[in-house]
Each structure stands twice: as structure tokens, then as C-alpha cells.
């Protein structure tokens, strides 16, 4: 079974090694340019960006945004013919990582503009739409925003209520409704708005994407939301009151807006993950600096093993995260790839790793970490949103497991049907039989991986098989009901995340070993081994608990609490 998603193939029991080996490498010239761009971004940040002021004043100064626009950071992903720089996905995300290492508000603002705000236009815009809007967006004259979430539709994005009714004679849609939590809502001029449109003769309401601009009559944005963190980013409500949106502003096919939104978010999640990697690197720098200089019991606290454990976790996490993000962006740059699950994995891993890092950095800093005079508390407030936006980690875990199983489920369904008409469906059955035999006789193997990674490769192969077996098991046990077995989905998702992380570090370190030799790759190899040792044990535990678990008890306790409207066992009656 072939597939152009590594992870989807993994669920189906096959290791598509060609997709991820060798680890993607940027060409030399692009890498040199990237280095210069990163230098520029760092220098600009050093001279101009005051995160304390951005947080306190709840805004990013205009001059800062203008300066970044002049450098060209608003049009990195836009092709040169529309005034941008036409970066590869890898280069774009690496620059975005740098922005994430500088300031959370800034990363969210630029991500809202570029990773998601104008992405639908890039992916599905017509030539006219691109010519009309992209140059302004590339130069930073206009900022873009992505408008999907509504009061009644967060994780359940398909449930949006905004309505755009086409008036064929007048050549426009009439758009009504509202959006909430829109990043850049107060500062953007261009909005990718998702609304339901009656489609076809039946008039069935399906989601479509529309290009809406601030200057359209009937458009307004609400007051700035007061948030826990990312204070400098703009977040508002949007109100659409009988806006006449020209029909030529439809982005992508009518009624296919949900697919457009998901595609945009797939790429957005990678940017978010890259930004988190930057944030973790900053936190490591802060933590190491503090741990080396802070002495207790006449010893720098960096010498205490409990502190070392925290620093190690941060370093391993960011190495793994980098490996996954730039493996995925490398795959995208190679072309024609389904990376929906992979980007979700990166987002989940990244947001949890940055949250852990900020927590540990604060712990290493001790009392001062809790003080408003130091940057830890701001970092903590800024980092928290990553677990929530661009798909909560819960909905993404469900997605990772379900989307991974889906194709294999379809395939099994075909096999089921074929069994009813065995004579007509010999092909499917032979295929299935071969597949079963292959699975029973031999585990899928990785070939030609460096000898130093033998152990890790073995574990990956072993547990890749476990994921496939678990998939078949739960599909045959729960069938369609699997969608409601979230304790199980959660485990499958965690197994998948660990497996993708393992293969990403293995591929990266394998390439390093082959290029530079074992001696020069010793440090990276140690990180890889450290991660894999922990990962396969987690996978094993999760695999065992697919069958053997206490899920019914956990369900019961939660249901009880909900029925009792809270905690019901206070020892004082």
C-alpha cells in the first residue's frame, strides 16, 4: 500500500522510508541567504524590539512592524512576482522560528498574517485576486487575518453560522454574521472569511472562503480582547452586517471552504511549531545562564542533577521538535505530499514542549521566576495559547488518530465487502492476504541506516508494528464507534507522535553520521538515543493500555463529578 503521507502509511503497517530518508537538506546558496536573513532579524530585534514594552503597552509599535515590513518579513512566503521573496517552506519556517525566539506577540501577529491570514489566497487564489492583494500584503501595507472561529464554532469548525448568500444578478454575496478571537482583527485590512453559502439547486449550505477587506461597507471589528498573554497581538471580534462581497472574491471552489481552511491550518500549525522551537531555545539560554550563575550550597545550581534533568528535557525536546518540523517542511518542499497529520503532530509536540520548557525555566529561576521584573512570567503567559489555538491539542490528537486510521479503515471496509463477493473481488482479497502474510512473517524494515542507530531503528520497527496492530484491533473492536473512544484515540495519537518524533531524529542523526562521522555526531547521537529510550517505553505503555486499561473507571469518575456539579467528597460534610 503506498501513500504520500508517512504517518498514514505507518498506520497501515508500512514504513515509507523513501519519504523521510535521507533527511532533507537545504541547498548551499539558500542556506547562506537564510543565515544572512537570520542575522538581520537578530540585529533588528536587538536594536528595536522591547518585549517588556510590547507586553505592558499591549501593542507592537507601528515602527517595529514597519521596520520588519521594510526588511521583507511580511512577504516571505509570497512569490517574487507578487512582491514577496518566494521562500521555501523550510526557509520560511526557520525565519519564523527566529521570530518566535524573540517575542510571542510578534510571532502571533506575523503568523496570523502569513502562516494563515493570506495562505488561502496563496493556495487557491485566482491570478486576479493574487495580483490585487498579494503585493500590498507582501509589502506590509496591509496585514492579513484568518477568520474562521465563531461563538458557536471553535473546534467544531464545520458548525459556523456566518452566511453569504449569492445575488447572481448583482454579482455579489451578501455576508452576515460574526467571528470571534480573530488574530490581527483590529489591525488587518484583508480577511480570509469562512461562511456558509447555499450551493447548487438544493441550496445546501456549505462552507466557502471569501476575501473580505476592511473598507467594505458593513464590516467592523470589535474592541481588543484582554488576554492572558501575547498582549501585543491584536485579537478582536469581527462583525459582518450585510457586506456586499463581490463574487470574484470567492477563494477556491464554492462549497469547498472547509477543505481550504484545513489546508491553511495544516501549514499554519507548522509555523506555530517552528515558533515554539524558537521560544524553547530562548528559554534554554535563559535557564543555562541562570543555572550557571546562581549558587546554592556554594555550588552553581547547574551542577545539581534535578536541574540538569530539566535542562536536558528542554534540549532534547527542541532537538526532536526541530527534527520533526524541518523533516516535514523538507517533505513539503519536495512536493506533492499529504502532511496534515505530520503538521498536527508538530503542533501538539511543540506547544507541549514549550509549555514544559517555560514551566521548568521558571522553576530553575526559583523566586525570581515568579517576579514580574523578570521575563519568565511573560514567557509563561505568552506560551500558554499554543496549546489552544490553531486546533486545540485535544481535537488534534483525535484528528491524528482518526485520520491515520481512516484510510486503513476504508481499506478494511473494502476487504469486508469483498468477502461477501469473493469471486468478483479477488484482487482486493489477494492484496489483503499478501498484506496479512507480510505482516505476520516480517516486520517492515528500515534499510541502510547508520550502524550507530541500530538499537533505535530496531525499536522504531518494533513499535511501528505495534501501532498498526493496535489500529486493526480497535477498528475491528469499535468500528465506527471508535470516534467516541477518546481515551483510546489519545493513546494512538501519543504513539503516533512518539513514532514520528523517533523517525525524525533517527533520519536527522543518520544523515549527520553519514556526513560527519560518529565522532563529530556524538552529541546529537546521545540526544537521539536519550529520546528514543524514553519514547519507545511510552509507546509500549500506550500500546498495552489499548486493551488493558482503567478507562471505564476514569469515565465514571468524571461523569459523577459532572452530575454532582463538582467535587462531592469533602471530608467536612
Amino acid at each position, binding site marked *: 500500500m503506498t501513500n504520500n503521507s508517512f504517518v498514514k502509511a505507518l498506520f497501515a503497517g508500512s514504513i515509507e522510508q523513501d519519504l523521510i530518508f535521507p533527511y532533507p537538506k537545504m541547498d548551499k*546558496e539558500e542556506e*547562506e*541567504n537564510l*543565515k*544572512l*536573513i537570520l*542575522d*538581520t532579524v537578530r*540585529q*533588528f530585534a536587538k536594536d528595536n524590539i522591547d518585549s517588556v514594552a510590547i507586553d505592558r503597552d499591549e501593542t507592537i509599535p507601528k515602527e517595529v512592524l514597519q*521596520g520588519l515590513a*521594510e*526588511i*521583507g*518579513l511580511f*512577504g*516571505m512566503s509570497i512569490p517574487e512576482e507578487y512582491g514577496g*521573496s518566494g521562500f521555501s517552506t523550510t526557509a520560511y519556517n526557520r525565519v519564523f522560528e527566529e521570530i518566535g525566539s524573540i517575542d510571542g506577540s510578534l510571532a502571533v501577529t506575523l503568523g496570523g498574517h502569513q502562516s494563515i491570514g493570506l495562505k488561502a489566497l496563496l493556495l487557491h487564489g485566482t491570478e486576479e485576486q493574487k495580483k490585487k492583494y498579494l503585493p500590498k500584503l507582501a509589502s506590509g501595507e496591509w496585514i492579513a487575518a484568518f477568520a474562521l472561529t465563531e461563538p458557536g464554532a471553535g473546534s467544531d469548525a464545520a458548525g459556523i453560522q456566518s452566511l453569504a448568500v449569492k445575488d447572481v444578478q448583482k454579482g455579489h454575496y451578501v455576508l452576515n454574521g460574526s467571528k470571534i478571537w480573530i488574530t490581527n482583527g483590529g489591525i488587518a485590512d484583508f480577511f480570509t472569511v469562512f461562511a456558509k453559502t447555499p450551493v447548487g439547486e438544493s441550496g445546501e449550505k456549505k462552507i466557502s472562503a471569501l476575501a473580505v477587506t476592511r473598507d467594505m461597507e458593513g464590516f467592523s471589528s470589535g474592541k481588543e480582547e484582554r488576554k492572558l498573554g501575547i498582549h501585543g497581538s491584536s485579537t478582536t471580534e469581527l462583525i459582518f452586517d450585510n457586506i456586499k462581497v463581490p463574487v470574484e472574491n470567492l477563494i477556491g471552489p464554492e462549497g469547498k471552504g472547509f477543505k481550504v481552511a484545513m489546508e491553511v491550518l495544516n501549514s499554519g500549525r507548522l509555523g506555530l511549531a517552528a515558533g515554539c522551537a524558537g521560544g524553547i531555545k530562548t528559554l534554554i539560554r535563559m535557564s543555562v545562564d541562570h543555572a550557571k550563575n546562581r549558587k546554592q550550597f556554594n555550588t552553581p545550581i547547574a551542577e545539581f542533577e534535578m536541574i540538569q534533568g530539566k535542562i536536558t528535557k528542554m534540549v532534547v525536546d527542541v532537538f526532536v521538535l526541530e527534527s520533526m518540523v524541518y523533516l516535514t517542511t523538507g517533505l513539503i518542499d519536495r512536493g506533492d505530499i499529504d502532511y496534515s497529520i505530520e503538521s498536527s503532530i508538530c503542533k501538539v509536540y511543540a506547544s507541549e514542549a514549550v509549555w514544559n520548557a517555560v514551566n521548568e525555566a521558571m522553576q530553575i529561576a526559583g523566586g525570581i521566576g515568579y517576579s514580574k521584573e523578570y521575563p519568565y512570567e511573560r514567557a509563561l503567559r505568552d506560551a500558554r495559547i499554543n496549546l489552544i489555538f490553531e486546533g486545540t491539542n485535544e481535537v488534534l490528537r483525535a484528528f491524528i488518530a482518526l485520520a491515520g486510521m481512516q484510510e486503513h479503515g476504508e481499506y478494511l471496509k473494502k476487504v469486508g465487502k469483498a468477502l461477501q463477493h469473493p469471486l468478483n473481488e479477488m484482487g482486493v482479497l489477494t492484496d489483503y492476504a499478501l498484506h496479512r502474510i507480510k505482516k505476520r512473517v516480517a516486520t517492515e524494515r528500515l534499510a541502510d541506516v547508520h550502524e550507530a542507530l541500530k538499537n533505535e531503528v530496531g525499536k522504531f520497527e518494533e513499535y511501528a508494528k505495534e501501532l498498526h496492530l493496535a489500529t486493526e484491533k480497535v477498528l475491528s473492536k469499535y468500528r465506527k464507534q471508535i470516534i467516541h473512544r477518546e481515551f483510546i484515540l489519545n493513546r494512538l495519537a501519543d504513539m503516533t507522535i512518539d513514532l514520528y518524533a523517533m523517525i525524525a531524529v533517527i533520519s536527522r542523526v543518520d544523515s549527520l553520521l553519514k556526513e560527519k562521522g560518529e565522532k563529530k555526531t556524538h552529541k546529537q547521537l546521545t540526544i537521539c538515543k536519550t529520546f528514543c529510550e524514553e519514547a519507545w517505553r511510552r509507546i509500549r505503555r500506550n500500546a498495552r493500555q489499548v486493551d488493558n486499561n482503567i478507562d471505564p473507571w476514569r469515565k465514571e469518575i468524571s461523569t459523577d463529578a459532572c452530575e454532582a456539579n463538582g467535587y462531592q467528597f469533602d471530608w467536612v460534610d
Partner: protein
Amino acid sequence: MKIIVCMKQVPVKDSLLKITDDGSWVHETDLNYEINESDHYALEEALRLKEAHSGEVVLLSMGPERVREAIKQGLAKGADRAIHIDNSSFTTQDPFVNARVLAAAIKREEFDLVLSGLQTDDYGSAQTGVILAENLGVPSATIVMEIQKQNGGIKVKRELESGWFQWVELPLPSLLTIQSGINQIRYATIKGIMMAKKKEIKALGLSELGLSESDVEEGQTGLVFSKIYVPEKTKKTEIFEGDPREVAQKLADKLKNEAKVI
């Protein structure tokens, strides 16, 4: 106006320096490099002059392969082309020799103005610029803070001491060494960085410059670097004991005659 900017790549300012065992220089392998600060201001000044009066900005840099990074940065900021003299075979710390090599490269070009930084952040001798002007046979002005173009020449503001400045008029061609901080250095733009690859970087060796190995030999001018070392700590604490009156007298004497602070 055709301007040549001499630009050196030096270790990043807050680098942790490790001196080589023989004390001849620092270990270079672990260092990061940047454009020498005052050279960076010289480049910015050249770009501004070009924008105001049109012309060409040519970068000239001497150093090993790594200086191409600095050259690319300069090209990304708007310089039109560059000359790279690879000095791996004749690295010398003598400003006289360096100026001779730079002069040989500049003489191949027609130019109106040569700009360099006031001094480099590594050796800091502030000699190369003025010796270069002598080699080229053009007038020079040092510690320049402002440049105004006039008919047939330029008028420059020089920094003297104690807040004093001096305006000097020079004909063209001439050479100026630029003081740090006189303008605001621009950031390379992404477009500039991507366009830089299309710009010419001409590599020149000694033979192309018409020089022989004896021209760049170390020690020929009598300048020899014998040893580089970290300043030795000479802090010494002296404790006076005894009758407070006598101790106070001793202390006053020391402060007055030895430390010379009162």
C-alpha cells in the same frame, strides 16, 4: 561618484578569545565574525553618498574564505560589486603591508573616494587607512563624521578632542577614515540578500595584483608582533596595621604620592 569601501571582518565583539599556544594570535576556529564596526559605518556612508549623487559602491575586503560572508552582507545592503583578496597565504598583522596590498587592488580601479573605518576592532592600530592614502597618492582625512559634496571636491567634518570638530576641504579622489556612529546603519533586506547572489565578487591573488611574496613578507617594516596576552592582573592589597593615627597618615601618603588620587 565611484566609492571603494575597505571592509574587514573581525571576531564578534563579545567573543570568548583563546590565545594560541605560541601567543601569536587567537584561535579562530570557534569564533563568529562580523563586519568591523567603523567599516560598517563607512559602507553605510558610501551607500548614502551613492543614493544622493549616483555612482557605484565597490567593496574591498581582504581575508580568508570566510570574509565572503561579510562581503555578501555588504552586497545585500546595496554595494554594487566586490573584490576579495584571499590572504590565506600571506596573513600579516602589519598595517603597512596590508595597505600595500589594498592599494594594489584599488589602483586597478578608477575611483573618486576610498572610505574605510577609522580602525579595526581586532588590532585597532588605525594605521591602514592613512598608509593606504599615501600608497595611492591621494589626500586623506581621519575620524570623519560628515561628508558634503562640493563642486570638484568634498568638505568633511573631523572629530577632534574634547568636543571640538574641524571642517576640512579635500579634492577628489581622496581617502577618508570614518568614525563609528555617524549614521544609522541600514538592515539588509530579504530582497537585497537574494539579489546579492547576482553581484560580482572578484577574487584577486598576489600575482594578479602584481605583487611578489617578498612584498608581503612579515617583519620587513620592522614591525614584529612578539606576543599576545591577556592583561595580567596586578591588583595588590596592602593592609596597614598599628596606631590609627599613623595608619591614617600612611594611607594619606599612599593616596597622594603613589595612587595620586588626592
